[in-house]
């Protein structure tokens, strides 16, 4: 059976979860992997909880249903923890990365996190300090790279450089590169 890595993104509309899922797909493209990125379709409103999915594999992916049992869960907004069951469908050992400035131990103590490997990264803080906007997606991609080892930091930086250079000036591109790097460095399980 083929090995597929499944990632679920939880965010609020406007935080860039769909863009993040797409960027991970593009990193996979640049590394000749197979991938799928798709949102949970429905009315999209800024601020409302949304879900997006990414699948990655070394072989063609031919399953198109929503991801039920993700290996990685990324939470772009910590206030969602009280609104959405972010660990739904995960098995023990699944990785949960939360955008939070709080201590990891605090989150890991929540009942739904039992048995899950919990990490935090202060993604909003990083985003405010680098790109000057509260869009936590790029730091969390850095965090995902560090925790999962699915792709190298260099690979992501290269992709961010290529894809953002088409639309933004050098300052914006550099700020995003810095955001990814800091997400990579500052993600922690402590």
């Amino acid at each position, binding site marked *: 059976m*083929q090995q597929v890595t499944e990632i679920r993104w939880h965010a609020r509309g406007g935080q860039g979860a769909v863009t993040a899922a*797409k960027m991970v797909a593009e990193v996979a493209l640049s590394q000749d992997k*197979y*991938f799928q990125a*798709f949102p949970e*379709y429905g009315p999209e409103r800024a601020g409302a909880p949304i879900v997006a999915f990414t699948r990655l594999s070394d072989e063609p992916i*031919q*399953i*198109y249903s929503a991801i*039920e049992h993700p290996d990685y869960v990324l939470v772009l907004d910590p206030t969602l923890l009280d609104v959405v069951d972010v660990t739904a469908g995960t098995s023990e050992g699944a990785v949960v990365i939360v955008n939070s400035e709080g201590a990891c131990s605090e989150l890991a103590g929540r009942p739904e996190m039992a048995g899950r490997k919990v990490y935090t990264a202060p993604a909003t803080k990083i985003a405010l300090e680098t790109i000057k906007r509260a869009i936590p997606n790029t730091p969390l991609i850095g965090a995902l790279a560090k925790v999962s080892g699915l792709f190298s930091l260099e690979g992501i930086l290269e992709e961010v450089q290529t894809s953002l250079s088409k639309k933004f000036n050098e300052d914006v591109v550099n700020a995003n590169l810095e955001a990814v790097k800091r997400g990579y460095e500052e993600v922690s399980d402590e």
Partner: protein
Amino acid sequence: MARKAITGNGAIALALKQVEPDVMAAYPITPQTEIAQNYAQFVANGDVVTEYIAVESEHSAMSAAIGSAAAGARTITATSSQGFALMWEMLFIAASLRLPITMPVITRALSGPINIHCDHSDSMGGRDCGWIQLYGEDAQEGYDNAIQAFRIAEHMDVRLPVMTMIDGFIISGAIGPVETLDDEQVKEFVGDYVAVNALLNVEKPVTVGAFDSLGGWYFEHKIAQNRAMENAMDVIEEVGREFGELFGREYAHFKTHEIEGADIVLVAIGSAAGNVKTMVDTLRGEGKKVGVLKVRTFRPFPTEQIREALSGAKVIGVMDRSDSFGAQGGPLFTEISSALYEAETQPQIYNFIYGLGGRDLFPDDIRGAVEMLEKAAAGETLAQQRHYLNVREG
């Protein structure tokens, strides 16, 4: 050639851009898809010389496409869901005038209740309007089919409109890897457009769409349409083979996976065929003799070839993403059942309706269907022929 991360909509819009037809007539508002939006952008950016006609409804979109094609222009449109339904009347006219219009359809549910998500109610409802229908599993097939559609539609033995389907949102909105061709490769493959009996050819004035009464040729005209459909059977294969020789991805009327020696064969169409194939691989790993047949050409329906392909199976499970109310089963089911009527040995056959209004089809749903079929293969006759997957009780 290039490998791109692109949505199903984006891939199809790109295919159309690479063909660069003379005219696109499209209704630019929902339920339209990003295909029409992207194409409008190509026109606005000056990437294509296509004349873009933004019309006030899908009925008008198809009417304008008919006028344009009758005038002698290579013409496209695109639609989905309620838009397809609103085109209904004109779909028959495009086919009976033998206009080689091509149209990607992003398959989505029909209201009511109001629902925007994937199922095949729209295109399956149009299965008898005289258009050739090709269904794709993923964005790659959507892209490849959209290109091949021009060659099939414009073939002198065919001259029928062609619609190419991919699943709404599940494929149209998802980003996946797509191997795209170079613009020149696409243009060379589709070739120059040859108009037949063009209205704008003043050298040879013709009347198009005249009244054809009791003493006329209406009946014979319909027979000619059916003959064109029969001709399309070979043409679709020829074009698919040539596409494979040139670009490495060969297409036929359907594709099988693990059906050699399979007791149970599931027949599926659209993205679900991939879900089924993935589960078939899992079940084969467990030693179960299960296979899958993925239908690409639904009109004309490859009856004899499918009968032959399914000849070794004990039990067939047909997966339909639309229902046919009051009929024996969904559209694919009734087609497969008819095909098997003349088989030497008749397998048991069951219908699984799934995914209406975008309801997901999970691996366990397919496993559940196969477990039912295993009972049938063991000699039990199931109480019902039609089953529904992933539905709530009550």
